[in-house]
């Protein structure tokens, strides 16, 4: 959302970095020792962060575009791009410029000592493996959402980030939007009382009606590298590009695509990061035909305890019509009203639309004026800016890997309950499914050699 993105001046950014935690009322603990920075190839305060991009399809190019303001402010430079599709790679090179090296295999980037950080925007089935590999090579990581496709991947990502002391940001950028801050502050100050239920809505997933048989991959595509961790199967053009989202193995459907946005807002605003449900029950309608197998329609209920609240994911659910706007609001006009959530509290309700790069809240929330003594909440300077602060100061980012994995687990558990056709019981402390051996097996999906954790 370029309209939501403030241009950052290098001097302003450096002034902000490191003082936000102290000034804010929300505790964001340190992840990285500041002493670890500006050493071992890590960027110091006056150095540009040297970024490489892994995955330069639609989203990868979009993320590059979002970072150009930071590059122009002298905060970073783009030193390499990588894609398994040569046409996309060539296109990326044209966009990013001749100074950026080009690679098919992301591991060439990871072995370079002069790369500080990577932006991962590959299909979802690659996120866990590439995140862990990048962390093991000491790179700071911005990784598109959802963080992971399995419980095992999520645990490995958290462990790799901790062990290697890297700053991570998962791409649920709704948390960093201006109206997300307003919603968070509104809820924290008790305007609707204790929230006991959050109902998300989202339009249904598409059906592949193309009847496309398997075929040879096009010459520009490295099918083996595109599949990566997934078990081998013949190429079918309905796997890619972009449409990987509609396969349970890779994208996981709407719930793992947009659920990782809308439910991310709920977990952040309700202070539920680090917690999880104790029960998950899903029902859904699969496509009537085609390669894609994620739910067309779906309903998932998550039961949280201590504190008690309910989260539901509903395709299509009951969408709330978008409010009229002038476009001068902090988040601008509502351009994606097809998803959002209703927060139900003991004293009222709150509605938001979107939840990703566009996050919009009701007028009453925007216009609420905090009285003296009101609680403030952390205000992200922008999703990439917040990540850069994490890199330079060691501050924990707003959508750090622990938070991102926690949200991804909601999506994963919803899909597992749907696939198995039964309620799942989850231990949020041990992060394990309880009392169902088959479901426990599905927490793990061993990966194809050598593309594994």
């Amino acid at each position, binding site marked *: 959302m370029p309209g939501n993105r403030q241009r950052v001046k290098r001097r302003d950014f450096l002034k902000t970095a490191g003082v936000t935690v102290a000034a804010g009322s929300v505790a964001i603990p340190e992840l990285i020792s500041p002493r670890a920075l500006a050493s071992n190839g890590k960027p110091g305060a006056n150095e540009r962060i040297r970024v490489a991009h892994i995955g330069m399809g639609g989203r990868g190019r979009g993320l590059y575009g979002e970072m150009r303001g930071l590059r122009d402010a002298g905060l970073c430079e783009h030193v390499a791009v990588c894609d398994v599709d040569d046409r996309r*790679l060539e296109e990326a*090179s044209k966009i990013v410029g001749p100074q950026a090296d080009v690679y098919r295999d992301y591991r060439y980037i990871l072995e370079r000592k002069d790369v500080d950080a990577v932006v991962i925007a590959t299909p979802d089935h690659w996120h866990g493996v590439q995140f862990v590999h990048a962390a093991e090579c000491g790179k700071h990581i911005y990784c598109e959402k959802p963080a992971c496709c399995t419980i095992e991947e999520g645990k490995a990502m958290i462990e790799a980030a901790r062990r290697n002391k890297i700053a991570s940001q998962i791409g649920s950028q709704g948390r960093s939007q201006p109206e997300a801050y307003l919603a968070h502050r509104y809820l924290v100050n008790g305007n609707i009382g204790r929230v006991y239920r959050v109902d998300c809505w989202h339009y249904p997933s598409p059906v592949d009606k193309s009847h496309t048989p398997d075929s040879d991959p096009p010459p520009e595509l490295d099918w083996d590298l595109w599949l990566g961790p997934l078990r*081998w199967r013949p190429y079918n053009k309905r796997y890619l590009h972009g449409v990987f989202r509609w396969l349970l193995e890779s994208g996981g459907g709407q719930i793992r695509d947009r659920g990782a946005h809308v439910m991310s807002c709920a977990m952040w605003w309700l202070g539920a990061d680090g917690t999880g449900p104790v029960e998950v029950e899903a029902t859904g309608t699969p496509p*009537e035909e085609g390669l894609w197998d994620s739910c067309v329609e779906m309903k998932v209920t998550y039961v949280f305890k201590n504190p008690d609240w309910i989260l539901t994911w509903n395709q299509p659910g009951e969408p709330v019509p978008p409010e009229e706007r002038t476009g001068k609001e902090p988040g601008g006009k509502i351009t994606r009203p097809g998803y959002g959530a209703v927060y139900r509290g003991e004293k009222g309700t709150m509605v938001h639309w979107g939840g990703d790069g566009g996050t919009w809240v009701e007028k009453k929330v925007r216009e609420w004026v905090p009285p003296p003594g009101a609680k403030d909440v952390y205000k992200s300077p922008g999703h990439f800016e917040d990540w850069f602060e994490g890199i330079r100061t060691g501050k924990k980012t707003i959508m750090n890997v622990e938070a991102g994995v926690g949200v991804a687990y909601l999506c994963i558990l919803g899909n597992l309950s749907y696939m198995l056709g039964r309620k799942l019981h989850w231990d949020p402390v041990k992060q394990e499914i309880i009392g*169902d051996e088959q479901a426990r097996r599905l927490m793990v999906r061993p990966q194809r050699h050598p593309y594994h954790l």
Partner: protein
Amino acid sequence: MEQLTVAKLIELLNSPDPFVRRDAWLAAGPLGAAALRPLADLAATGELEISRAANRGMWQIVRYVGAPGREELRRPAVETLGEMVVDTRLPVQLRRDIVWMLSEIIKDEEIDQASALPLLLDADLGEDVRMALQRVAGPNAIGVLKAGFTQAQGEHKTAIACSLRKCGIAIDEPPCPKLVPRKTTTVKPVGRDA
């Protein structure tokens, strides 16, 4: 829907109406092991969408019989899948699917090492069998991986070593190559002088 039988299931899956096929495979679970072979045959020979529906029916059965409290349905399903996985008349890709079906519901004590080892060393199925054994990760599964490690060659031996490490077994050589880049591109940076 009237009482579903295996014959009726197969008839419905052959329907030209995709919604009829979907509702049929969704209802396949309680038919259990008895429906697996007919479904596999249909998956192997049917027109594209009918084959897909039959395959999804097999998965539906696996997810149904694997539920807690359905041991009397799970055991025969494992036996039937075990027979089909070695049936070379079935397409390789379907046999790979069957390996993954087994990985969800087979108990470690049901893995016969003498039968599983040739599958681990099989050129078509070996990689999927390796991953399935890693998922099960019990003493028998690990035993097959250890035996396979001593006999496998080249990259497959390396892959098995990685699986054994995942299962907590110390293996020094060969090292894990997961971070070693292998694939180069012919694309050059656009606009960069040679």
